[in-house]
């Protein structure tokens, strides 16, 4: 049981013992838990060492990002769905609080914005051309085209 808790049984023995424990043998389970507890106590003899402050700073920053993400998901589920729908197929949907997703979203929308702008320009120039043609017709008395 100690070898099992230490992770040093052969594959076959490990599978057999795992099955045995799953079957619910109270004696073996008790022995296994006691072995695990003994092994887990070994590092308690280590002298605690102060880690660099930067580790905690990075960790807490990551946790703050998680919290913002969770808050975003909790408060604006509809917004998350809209953004998910706008994404290209295969791109996973994440919270809008995930700052890294906005540049990707903008990049996906950019071609559509450009097309819309070109269409607007084309319509505008067509209108301008029509009014210029009318102006010339009026000024020179040219009959309008049928």
């Amino acid at each position: 049981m100690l070898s099992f808790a230490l992770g040093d049984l052969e594959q076959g023995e490990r599978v057999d013992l795992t099955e045995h424990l799953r079957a619910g043998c109270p004696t073996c389970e008790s022995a296994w838990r006691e072995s695990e507890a003994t092994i887990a106590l070994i590092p308690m003899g280590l002298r605690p060492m102060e880690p660099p402050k930067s580790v905690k700073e990075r960790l807490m920053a990551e946790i703050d990002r998680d919290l913002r993400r969770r808050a975003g998901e909790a408060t604006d589920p509809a917004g998350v769905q809209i953004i998910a729908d706008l994404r290209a197929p295969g791109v996973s949907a994440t919270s809008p609080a995930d700052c890294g997703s906005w540049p990707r979203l903008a990049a996906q929308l950019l071609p559509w914005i450009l097309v819309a702008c070109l269409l607007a320009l084309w319509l505008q120039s067509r209108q301008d051309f029509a009014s210029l043609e009318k102006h010339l017709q009026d000024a020179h008395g040219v009959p309008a085209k049928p």
Partner: protein
Amino acid sequence: MSHPDDAALMSRVAQGDRAAFEVIYERYCGLVYSLALRILRDATTADELLADVFLEVWRRSDRYDATRGAVATYLTTLCRSRGIDRLRAQKRAPVVQIGDDEVMSAIIGSETPDPARNLSGNEQRGRVLRALATLNEDMRSALELAFYEGLSHSQVAERLSKPLGTVKTHIRQGLIHLRERLRMDGSGDA
């Protein structure tokens, strides 16, 4: 390092309580970091392992079951498992970037960065140190290789240039001895 409020703190962490998480980190970062350094023997990867362990505590806090053991036990088990995974992934023998003396002082030293931080932790550490001190050198070295480096019994035998059967006996007897000593000393909480 059992604290009466550790389980309650973990329960708050599971609900996304940042302050509770910070208390758990402050309480146990020294222990987890020393274990990470002992396993990996490299400060940079030990930093990463420390962050990985606590990030897993934050994101998978539902995995902690207070009925199965103390928070300290959960953390050291998680750190050992992830640390040995890293060692195996690197597929190399641990690079000794920390002197053996420093490693040994981490094992048997008596100073903590903040002695007031964790009195019950110090008490438990005292019990474990007393129990470890009663192991003979053969048992201790075999156990340390198996525990900290995740070596199989065969690998330990090869490393120590001893017969496999002898190493198995040393590990088994060492753990039984440790368990009995801790039981006698009243350190049954893990």
